[in-house]
């Protein structure tokens, strides 16, 4: 019975966990401008995160070492350092974007300017990371993220032409008003939002924080194979809602307000409160995860002790990295960087760095020294390699497209 509960909890947590500020912003923007014609990009990123999160989680559960910890051993300190620096830059910017998302949500709820919320949120994130037990933290924010399900209810209420929706998803076409470059630029942005570097490293270290071992592989698989797709469904609801409400009125998404609009239009004031709660939970949860991901990667590269499951006195450098991360992120936001634009920038940069992030995962999962008999099957490898080729293509195209389209224009 306990096992069923664990699995259910894991699935529910994974739903809210899949969605962060990247999906909120990109999902709504894309829905407004392209309808459902880019749904395939979200589905493709879902496929990728499912394959690689399963691998990364399995590596952690079986070898009792998180993936990033093994990168330096298997690929050398130079590659490890390149990987560390690239993911740190991106993840740090992501921390800023997520804190910005929390601040924007609070601004919507209280009408107090988001800049005033930034230091408060950064401080609260630190308090949770410093004191709250890992599992309690994950479960609390994951479950509250379920509030986002209201976006699905809203879409149902809006009574779209489901045939038309299905057509756009299965036979995507570029809208006449948009250029080819824009179309693929936003495809990459949406794709990058679902596959950010921190997700795999956090999932892997989180498995160790929760003391998962081989016997927990079913829970891990349920999280990944059921939870993440449900999370993608939330993203698609946001996209569909935006295409139904924002698109026809040509409303651009420049603030979280527009992302919440379709839900409140469909269901009324109460729904706005619920969806804001959902936004808060998923962005705050993601702020926690990205901050921890920064600490994990630095500590694991240098071989320091790390983890919330360890008392602070035993991993001083890890906790100091977390504090410095939050200070830097808050500084970025307080320099008046627009959180929404920052989010767009970060998800495309993520897409550019994806091969660097995922290549080590694939290699490490094939090493019998760490994995025993649970190394990748040829099927996993084939999927992984095919996906890696796709990631290379995306990576090469990302920055040029950003320049050509002037970041979406």
């Amino acid at each position, binding site marked *: 019975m306990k096992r069923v509960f664990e699995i259910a909890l894991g699935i529910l947590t994974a739903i809210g966990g899949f969605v962060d500020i990247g999906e909120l912003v990109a999902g709504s923007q894309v829905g407004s401008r392209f309808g459902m014609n880019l749904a395939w990009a979200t589905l493709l990123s879902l496929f990728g995160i499912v394959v690689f999160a399963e691998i990364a989680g399995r590596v952690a559960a079986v070898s009792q070492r998180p993936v990033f910890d093994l990168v330096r051993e*298997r*690929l050398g300190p130079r590659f490890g350092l390149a990987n560390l620096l690239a993911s740190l830059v991106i993840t740090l910017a992501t921390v800023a974007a997520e804190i910005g998302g929390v601040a924007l949500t609070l601004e919507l709820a209280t009408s107090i300017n988001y800049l005033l919320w930034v230091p408060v949120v950064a401080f609260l994130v630190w308090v949770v990371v410093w004191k709250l037990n890992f599992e309690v933290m994950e479960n609390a924010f994951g479950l509250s993220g379920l509030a986002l399900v209201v976006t699905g209810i809203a879409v149902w209420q809006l009574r779209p032409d489901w045939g038309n929706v299905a057509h756009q998803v299965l036979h995507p076409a570029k809208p006449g008003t948009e250029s080819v470059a824009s179309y693929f630029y936003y495809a990459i942005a949406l794709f990058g939002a679902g596959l950010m570097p921190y997700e795999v490293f956090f999932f892997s270290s989180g498995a160790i924080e929760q003391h998962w071992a081989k016997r927990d592989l079913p829970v891990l698989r349920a999280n990944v194979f059921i939870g993440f797709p449900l999370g993608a469904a939330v993203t698609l609801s946001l996209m569909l809602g935006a295409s139904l409400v924002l698109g026809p009125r040509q409303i651009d998404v420049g603030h979280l307000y527009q992302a919440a609009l379709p839900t409140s239009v469909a269901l009324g004031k109460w729904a706005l409160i619920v969806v804001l709660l959902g936004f808060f939970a998923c962005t705050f949860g993601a702020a926690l995860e990205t901050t921890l991901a920064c600490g994990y990667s630095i500590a694991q590269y240098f071989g320091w002790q790390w983890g919330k499951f360890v008392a602070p006195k035993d991993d001083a450098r890890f906790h100091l990295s977390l504090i410095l991360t939050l200070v830097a992120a808050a500084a970025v936001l307080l320099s008046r960087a627009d959180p929404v634009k920052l989010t767009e920038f970060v998800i495309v940069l993520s897409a550019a760095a994806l091969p660097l992030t995922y290549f080590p995962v694939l*290699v490490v999962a094939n*090493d*019998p*020294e760490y994995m025993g008999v649970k*190394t*990748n099957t040829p099927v996993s490898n084939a999927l992984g*390699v095919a996906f890696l080729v796709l990631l290379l293509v995306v990576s090469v195209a990302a920055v040029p497209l950003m320049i050509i389209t002037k970041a979406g224009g």
Partner: protein
Amino acid sequence: MRLSDLLERAVVDQHGRNWGQVHDVYLVQDGPVSATAAAFRIHGLIAGRGTFGTQLGYVGRPGYEHDQETRGPWVLKALVRRLQRRAVYVPWTDVVEVGDHQVIVRSPPNGFDRANSGAPSSP
């Protein structure tokens, strides 16, 4: 001397031939015995072209059994093995000097043995 003084250094013999860069160093626990255990001694090194993929555990080498090798992905493994097929094993007794930028060795008349051709002969 440190391991970092050897790894990735060019290996050059008395004729000026470049055998590649040092990929790894072979240790055997047959040294002086202290309170706890015998010490490890360097018996030789592997040198080959470039250093791509040499730490991944794909390539056969003396003392490293086949079932310990990293298993895949197949594409990468095949690529690394092909790149490293000419890597050689240099016994330490053939090392003349560890210089600042290269390791000078004395190569036997037929050159050094390929690294993946089986166990090295003891010095």
